[in-house]
C-alpha cells in the first residue's frame, strides 16, 4: 500500500516500465528457447530479420499491425468507459460481412476509392450492430458485458459459417468463401510507401487499410480527449458514481461507447477482406480481436501506445512465422508461448516492477 500512490514521471510510466516488462518477457522466452535446444540469440536475430529485415517482412509486419490497431482501438474505447469488450473478435468477423457486401455490390461499377467509403461504413455498421445487443443487455439489464460479448463471438462465428457455406458461397465451389472481388472492390497495396524507404513489398498484403487505421487513431484521440462525449465516457469509466452525480446518462453512454467500439472492430475486416484476400473467408479474423485486448492493455488505451504495441505484435506474428520456418524446433505453438509471455508481462503484470522503480526513484530520482 505504500508505493501505489506515489506519482512517477510519464517517461517512467509509459516508457521505462513497458520496456522493462518487454525485456523480461523476452528473457524468459529466451530461456524457453534455450531449453528446447536452440540458441536464443540466433532465434531473436531470425525473428527480427524476418519481421523487419526487408520490404516484404516489414509489409507483413505492418499488415498484421493494421489488424491489431483496429481491434486495439476497439478495446480501448470501451475500456475508457470501464467496459471490457471481449467481443472485438466477433464484431470484426461480422464487420467483414458488411465490408464484403459493399464490395460485392459495387466492384463491377466503380473504382476502389468509391467503394471504400461504403465498405468502411458497412464494416463499421455491421460491427457496431454486433456490439449493440451486449451493450443494451449491459445498460438495461446489467448482464455483464464480458460474458455477453464472449457469447456473441460464438454466435457470430456460427452465423458467418452458415452464411458462407449456404448463402454467400460461389455455386459449384467447395471453399466456404465469396467470389473474388474485382479491382473496384479491393483496397490497393501500399507498395509505393515501402518503396519510399527503398524496400520492395513483394507479395506482402500491406494495403490502404493501414492509413485508415492511422486516421482512426486520430479520430479516437479526438473523441476521447477533445469531445464532450469522450469526457463523459472517461468519467463513466473512472467513476460511475461521479457520472451519475454529473447527470451523465448511463444507458445512452454505454450503448454509444459500445457502438463505437464495435464499429472500430468491424473496420478491422477491411484489411484482410478487401486488402489481402479480396474475398470473405471463414475464420479470417484469426484471433486479432483477442490480440487487440493485449495491444490495448500494453498501449495504455492511448492511440499512440496502441500503434506501438500493434507494431510489436506485428513483429511477433511475422517474425514468429519466419522463425518457425527457419528453426523447425520452434513450432507455431512456441511462438504463441512467446506472445503469451509478452501479453502476461506487458498486459496482466503491467505494474510488476512499479514498487521497485518507485523505491529507486525516491532514492535517486527526486528533483
Amino acid at each position, binding site marked *: 500500500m505504500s508505493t501505489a500512490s506515489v506519482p512517477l514521471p510519464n517517461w517512467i510510466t509509459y516508457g521505462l516500465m513497458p520496456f522493462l516488462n518487454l525485456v523480461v518477457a523476452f528473457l524468459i522466452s529466451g530461456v524457453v528457447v534455450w531449453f528446447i535446444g536452440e540458441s536464443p540469440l540466433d532465434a531473436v536475430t531470425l525473428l527480427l530479420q524476418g519481421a523487419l529485415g526487408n520490404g516484404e517482412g516489414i509489409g507483413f509486419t505492418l499488415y498484421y499491425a493494421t489488424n491489431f490497431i483496429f481491434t486495439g482501438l476497439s478495446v480501448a474505447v470501451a475500456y475508457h468507459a470501464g467496459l471490457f469488450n471481449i467481443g472485438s473478435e466477433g464484431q470484426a468477423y461480422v464487420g467483414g460481412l458488411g465490408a464484403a457486401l459493399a464490395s460485392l455490390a459495387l466492384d463491377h461499377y466503380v473504382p476502389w476509392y468509391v467503394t471504400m467509403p461504403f465498405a468502411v461504413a458497412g464494416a463499421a455498421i455491421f460491427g457496431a450492430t454486433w456490439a449493440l445487443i451486449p451493450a443494451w443487455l449491459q445498460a438495461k439489464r446489467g448482464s455483464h458485458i464480458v460474458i455477453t460479448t464472449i457469447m456473441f463471438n460464438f454466435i457470430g462465428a456460427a452465423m458467418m459459417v452458415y452464411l458462407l457455406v449456404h448463402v454467400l458461397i460461389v455455386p459449384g465451389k467447395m471453399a466456404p468463401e465469396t467470389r473474388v472481388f474485382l479491382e473496384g472492390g479491393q483496397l490497393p497495396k501500399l507498395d509505393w510507401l515501402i518503396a519510399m524507404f527503398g524496400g520492395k513489398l513483394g507479395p506482402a498484403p500491406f494495403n490502404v487499410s493501414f492509413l485508415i487505421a492511422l486516421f482512426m487513431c486520430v479520430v479516437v484521440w479526438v473523441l476521447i480527449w477533445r469531445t464532450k462525449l469522450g469526457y463523459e465516457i472517461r468519467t463513466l469509466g473512472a467513476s460511475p458514481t*461521479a457520472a451519475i*452525480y454529473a447527470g451523465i446518462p448511463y444507458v445512452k453512454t454505454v450503448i454509444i461507447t459500445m457502438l463505437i467500439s464495435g464499429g472500430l472492430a468491424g473496420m478491422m475486416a477491411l484489411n484482410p477482406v478487401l486488402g489481402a484476400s479480396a474475398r470473405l473467408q471463414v475464420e479470417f479474423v484469426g484471433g486479432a480481436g483477442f490480440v487487440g485486448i493485449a495491444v490495448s492493455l500494453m498501449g495504455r488505451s492511448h492511440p499512440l501506445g496502441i500503434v506501438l504495441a500493434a507494431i510489436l505484435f506485428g513483429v511477433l506474428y511475422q517474425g514468429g512465422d519466419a522463425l518457425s520456418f527457419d528453426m523447425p524446433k520452434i513450432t507455431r505453438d512456441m511462438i504463441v508461448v512467446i506472445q503469451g509471455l509478452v501479453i502476461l508481462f506487458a498486459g496482466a503484470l503491467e505494474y510488476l516492477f512499479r514498487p521497485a522503480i518507485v523505491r529507486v526513484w525516491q532514492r535517486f530520482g527526486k528533483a
Partner: protein
Amino acid sequence: MSPTPTAAPAIELIGIDKKFGAVHANKNINLTVAKGSIHGIIGENGAGKSTLMSILYGFYHADAGSIRINGQNTVIQDSQAAISAGIGMVHQHFMLVENFSVLENVILGVEGGALLGRGVSDARSALKRLEADYGLEVDPDAIIEELPVGLQQRVEILKALYRGAEILILDEPTGVLTPAEADHLFKILGVLRDQGKTIVLITHKLREIMAITDTVSVMRRGEMVATRRTTETTVEELAELMVGRRVLLRVEKGPAAPSDVVLSVRNLTVKDGRGVTMVDNVSFDVRAGEVVGIAGVAGNGQSELLEAITGIRKPASGEILIHGKPVTGFDSARLRALGLGHIPEDRHHMGLVLGFEESENSVLGYHRDSRYGRGPLLDLDACREDAKAKIEKYDIRPPNCRLKTANFSGGNQQKIVVAREIERDPALLVVGQPTRGVDIGAIEFIHRRLIAMRDAGKAVLLVSVELDEIRSLSDRILVMFAGRVVGEKTPDTGEQTLGLMMAGIAA
C-alpha cells in the same frame, strides 16, 4: 502503574524525516510520549500526522531518524513488527470483516494454529479478562454488521489489546460517533490510561484534545511546531498553531431573511439498494435566504434524502418541488438546469473524478454547457481558463489546473467542488458534509462561502454529522433519526438536547 518521571518514555521519535517525491511529509520530527498518558496530535489535513503514525506502525519507512519504544531502539519494518513492539492501531475506517462475529474478528491473523478450536476458546477467555479490566463490554458472538458503529470501534480496540498492545494509536476515532458514543469512548480511553496503556490520539477536533489529552503536539506542513501540556493551552492557541495565523472558530453571520419557498419535500420515502426504507415519509421546506441544517448520526437516512433531492436516487414515493414545480425523479442534469447546486457528501466518489486533471473536474456536470466548447467538442482551453479563475478566487493550492485531482489535499479538493457548484450561482444549494476531512483554514473559508450564499438570497440545505457545524451555520435544524425527521429546533438549542434527539431518545 502511574507515569513516573524516571520511566523511559513509551514512544520516542528522533529526527524522523520522510519525503514522497517532491512532498516533504515529515521534516525532522521529534516526539516524546510518556508512558501511561494520552497524547494528542493535531494538525490540518496534509500536515503529516498520518504519515508519522504510518511510520510508527510500519506502513512507511522513514528516510532518516530513529524510533525508540520504551527506551529501546526499535526498527519497525512492517505492521507485524509494530504489533510485536506492542503498538496497536485503530484506523479511521475500521478493518473488520463485516459478516464475521466479534470473536472471529479479534482472532483474525492470530488464530494460533491451523485448527480454530483452541484459539477460539483461548480468545474467549482473553476477551472476558479484557472486558473485566477495561470495561470494554461487547458480545463476542455478535456479528459485526449488526453492531452500532461505537461498538464496532470497541472491537477494533479489543483487537489491538488482544494482540498485547501497550501503545494504542487512534486515527480520528470520533468521526463516526454520536456525542454520547464519543463520551463513552473517552471514558474507556481514560480507563486504559489509568491501567498504564499509552494512547496517541490523532484528531482535528480541538474540543476532544481539550477534553481528554494530557499533552498535545501540533503539526503544520510536515513540521512539529509545538508540544503543550493540555492544561496550559487553549483552543485558540492550538488553532492558531495549526493554521499558522489567527482563526475565527465561530462563523460570523447576521440574522436570516427567509423569503419564498425554493425546495419543498412532501411525504418523501426513499429506499436503499436492498429495499430497506431509509427515508420515511419526510416533509419540509427550504426558503430562499436561509440555511436549513439536517442533524443526525451517520446512517439515519440523511444520505439517501440528499440523493433523492439531487436526482441520484429515485424516491419510492412522495414529491419534491423546486420553485413549486414538481421535479420528482429528475436526473441530476435536469435538476442542475433548474438551478440546483450539489456539494456531495463524498467528494472522492461523487464530487470529483480523482484521476482527472483539476480543470476537468472544475466542469464536471456542466461540461455540456456551450461555454466549454461548441457542439460536440470540449474546449480544453475554456475549461482551463475557467478553472484558473476558480483557483484564484477560492485560493486552491497548488494553483495548477493541470495537476491530477488526487494530488490535491482534502481541503483543496473540497474547494474545487465548492467553487464549481457555487460559481454557477444556483438558487438552491444542497450540501453534504461540506468539511469532512477538511483542514481548519478551509473549513472557515467554506463556511463563510455558504453563509454568503444564504445572504445572497439562496436556499441552502445542509447535511452534516458535525453537530458544531450544523449549529453554527443553520437557521433551522431538523433532526433525523431512523429515517424520520424527529423534530425541528433553533440553532441555539443545547448540544445535549440535540444529541438525545439524534440518538432517538427524546423528541
